C-alpha cells in the first residue's frame, strides 16, 4: 500500500506492507537512517521519533498507522545550515554521547520531556529516560546535558 506522512515538514510517500514498522519505513523506504534500531522488544529507545507531537518508539507503530500524521525525526532537529538546536548543542557541550547510536532517541526523548516539563529535576530526567538505554555514558553526562539545555546551572564539563 502507499503511505503518506509529513516528515520533518515535507510530504513523503512510500510503499509499505501492513507489517512494515514506522522505524523500517523511515530507514529503508525514506532513507532517514538517523533513526536507529537497537532492539526488537521496544525497550532501547534508539528509534524514538515524534508523531503528531508525541514521542513514540517508532518500532511500536506500523507505518500504515502514521498515514496523514506529522512525524519529526532527528534529521529535522538542527537548522537547515547544520546549526545544532539547544538540546543537540548541550549534548555536545556536556559530552552526552559517545558512540552516538542511542543519541537520536535520547535527543528526541529529551525534546519531548523539556516541552512538557521545561525545568525538570535530575530525578525527573532520569525517570523520563527510563525507556532509552545508553551503554556508553552511564547517563551522567546525558542527564547533565538535558539539565543544561533546560537552562539550569550545571557545573563545567570536566575537572581540569
Amino acid at each position, binding site marked *: 500500500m502507499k503511505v503518506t506522512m509529513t516528515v520533518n515538514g515535507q510530504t513523503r510517500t512510500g510503499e509499505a*506492507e501492513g*507489517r512494515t514498522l514506522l522505524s523500517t519505513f523511515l*530507514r529503508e523506504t525514506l532513507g*532517514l*537512517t*538517523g*533513526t*536507529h*534500531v*537497537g*532492539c*526488537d*522488544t521496544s*525497550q*532501547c529507545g*534508539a528509534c524514538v521519533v515524534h508523531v503528531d507531537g508525541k514521542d513514540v518508539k517508532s518500532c511500536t507503530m506500523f507505518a500504515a498507522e502514521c498515514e496523514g500524521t506529522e512525524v519529526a*525525526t*532527528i*534529521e529535522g*532537529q*538542527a537548522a537547515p545550515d*547544520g546549526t*545544532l538546536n539547544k538540546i*543537540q548543542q548541550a*549534548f*555536545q*557541550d556536556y*559530552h552526552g*554521547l*559517545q*558512540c*552516538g*547510536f*542511542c*543519541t*537520536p532517541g535520547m535527543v528526541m526523548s529529551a525534546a519531548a520531556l523539556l516541552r512538557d516539563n521545561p525545568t525538570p529535576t*535530575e*530525578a525527573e*530526567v*532520569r*525517570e523520563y*529516560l*527510563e525507556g*532509552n*538505554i*545508553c*551503554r*556508553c*555514558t*552511564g*547517563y*551522567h*553526562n*546525558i*542527564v547533565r546535558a538535558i539539565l543544561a539545555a533546560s537552562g539550569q546551572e550545571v557545573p*563545567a*564539563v*570536566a*575537572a*581540569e
Partner: protein
Amino acid sequence: MPKDGGIGASSKRREDVRFLTGDGNYTDDINVNGQTYAWFVRSDVAHGTINGIDTSAAEAMDGVLKVFTSADFESAGGIPCGWQVTDRHGQPMQEPKHPILAEGKVRHVGDPVACVVAETLEQARDAAEAVELDIDELEPVLDMKAALADGAPKVHDELTSNLCYDWGFVEENKEAVDEAIKSAAHVVTLELTNNRLVANPMEPRVAVADYNRATGDYTLYTTSQNPHVIRLLMGAFVLSIPEHKLRVVAPDVGGGFGSKIYHYAEEAFVTHASKVVNRPVKWTSTRSEAFISDAHGRDHKTKIELALDENHMFTAVRTDTYANMGAYLSTFAPSIPTWLHGTLMAGNYKTPVVYVNVKAVFTNTTPVDAYRGAGRPEATYQLERVIDKAARELGVDPAELRRKNFIKPEEFPYDTPVAVTYDTGNYHATLDKALEMTDYAGFEKRAEESKARGKLRGYGLAHFIEACGIAPSNLVGQLGARAGLYESASVRVNATGGITVMTGSHSHGQGHETSFAQVVADMIGIDENMIEIEHGDTANTPMGMGTYGSRSIAVGGSAMVRATEKIINKAKKIAAHLMEASESDIELKDGQFSVAGTDKSVAWGDVTLAAYVPHNYPLEEIEPGLEETAFYDPSNFTYPSGAYVCEVEVDPETGKVEVLGFTAADDFGNVINPMIVEGQVHGGVAQGIGQAMLENCVYDENGQLLSASYMDYTMPRADDMPMFDVDHSCQTPCTHNPLGVKGCGEAGAIGSPPAVVNAVIDALHRGGFTNVEHIDMPVTPARVWAAMNS
C-alpha cells in the same frame, strides 16, 4: 586554567555533530546496489546431532536465491582462534573446529545451522521458517565442574574431554605458595562467581559484503573494533582471500566493549555468499540474535585464598578458577582467564608469591570472550573481595590493610611475582584521594543518619590495577598470541598545511577523531581543526590491530607521535634550507620554525608548501612530499590504577540496594582530553555497577538462555545510576611511551564491582547481619534478602 586546545584540553568532540544530526554512517545505514538479505536459521537446542536439513521448501519460495548449509563451506576453514594457551604440562590447549555453519552437531542455542539469502529481508525471514531441521537432542553440558566429570557428555566429540586447558601460573611458585599458606598466621578464603554478561553495545552487529566478479575484489562492511584483524583472520584462515583483494570497512560503530573484536561466522558467511550468489549480501542482527550469538563475557567460578602473617602483611595468594569458554573458542577467549587475569593477581600489593590455576571448560553455551576489562575485572573482584573479608575477620580498617600492603611509590619499577613489571604508580595517592573525596572520616555519622531512617548504610572500597596496551609483540607471541600487538599511523601533510592522520586504531565511541587530533596539533603548534583523523577502512589505513584493552592512546597514539616526529624532523630540514640555517638550530613552536637566537622564522604552511612545490628545496638531500608512517610496538604494558568507593543504602525489609554515590580516583598517567577520559570512566563504572547489581546471564537446565532480551536482561537505565564523582589528578606518567599515557577505557568496569559488593556486605554487617560473608553478583534484592534471612 582550562586549556583551549591541544594536549590536556577538553576539546568538544567533532564527531558529535554527525551523530547528533542523524548523519552518522553506521553499517546498517549502508545499502549496496542490488543487495540481497541473509537470515540465519539457528539451533533452538543447546546440544544435538544434525540428522538432516531439508531446504527444499525454503528454496522454492519467492525471492529466495539460495539456502546455504555447511556443505557450501567445505572448502572454507573454521573460524580461527587468535591465542593458543599452553597448559601446566607444556601441552597446547584443545582447539576444536569452529565451522561457519554447524557441521554434524549443534553446540549451543543460537549456533547457526543454515542461512537463507533472498531478495528482501522479509522473504529471507519467511523462507528461514520453512527450513526443516532434523536434530536429535543430546544432553547439554552446562555446569563447568560437571562438564569435567568422568563420563560427562562431550561438547566436541573429537576432543578427549571438555577441558580446553589446565593452566598454572606461576607454576614454579606453586610449592612456595602452598608452603606460605600452610604456615600463615591467617588464611582467608572466599568462593565466588564472576557472573556471565552480555556486552550489549547499542548497535547490533551488521555485515554487508560486496563481491566484484570483474575484479575479484571483495568489500566487507562490518561492525568491528579492528577491521585489519578481520581482514587477516577471515582472508588468511577462513576464505583464502589475499589481503589485497579484500577490503574491510568498519564505519561508524555503535559501541563494542569487546564484543566487536572477534571474527564472527556471519562475516565470513556474507563474504562467501556474495560471491556465490554474485550479489551483495547484507545481514543485520536482531537484538534477540545478539544475545545468543555475540560473544559473552566473564563467567568465572573462583576460590581464592589470601595468606597473611601476624602483622597482617600478605604472604601469598592462591586461586582456583573455572573459566567458561562456551561451545567454541572465540578469537581471544583463551587469553582472558590466563594472561589477562593471572598476571594481575598481585594487584597493588607486595604479595611475595602468587599461584593461579585456571581450568577452561567447554560447555553448550554461547562462546565467551573479552568484555570491557577482560580478565582484569575478574582478578580485581576476587582480590578486593577477599581483602575486604580479611579486614573484617581481622578487625582492621579495610583502607589501612590495603595501604600497609601497597607497593610504595618509591619502589617502582616493581617486579611482581606474576611476571609483570609495573613501571609507575602511586596507590597511596589514589587511595588518599578517594577517601578524601568521599569524606571517609564522616561516614559513621552518615551511617547513623541512615539508621535513623531504618536503612543500612555501607561503604565499599576497592583498589585496582590493570594492564593495558598488551605488548611487546615478541613477548605476547611467546605467550601464545597469534598476532602482533603493535599499532600504526600514517601522517599525511597536505601542501597547504592541513594534515590527514590514518590510524590503525578504531573509534567506536572513544572520540579519537578529536583526541588524536589534539596530540598532533600540540606537537606542531597548529589548530586542531587542521587535522583530520581517518580510521576504520583497510583501503586507506596502514595495517593496525584496532581498539580494545584500553590500548588506543598508549599504542595507537604513540605510533602517531612517532610518525609526527618523523614529519617534524623532515620539516625542520626543509625549514633550515629555506632560512639558510643549520638544521640543528631550527626550533618549532606554535607552528613557526625559527632559527635559534635570531628573528628568522618561516610558518608551518610555508614549509609544507615547499615540500610539495619544491622549487626552492634541497632535492639532492631529501625527497619532496611530507608523509610518514610509523609502527609502534610498546616495550611493556601500561598500568593504570585507582581507588573506587561506593556508598549504598540497603533496605533491610526488602533487600533493595540503592547506590547513593560512586567515586573514582584514577591514575591514568597523562591525560589528553579530560572530558573524554571522564566520560570513559562514567561508562565503565555504569557497566560495573550493572554487573554488580543488575546484569546476569541465566541458562535453564536445557541450555536455553532465559535472559535473552532487554525484557529479561537488566540493562542499567538512567534511574539506576547516581551521579559519579571522578578524579584523575593523581598522575604518574607511563615511563615507556612518548605521551606518558596509560589508557582509561576499562578502568571503570574493573574497579567498580568489588566496591559495590564490599559496600553491600559492609551495610549488612553494620546492620547486624554478621553471618553474611558474601553475596554473588548481581546483588539483587532477592539475593540480599535471602542472605539476611539465611
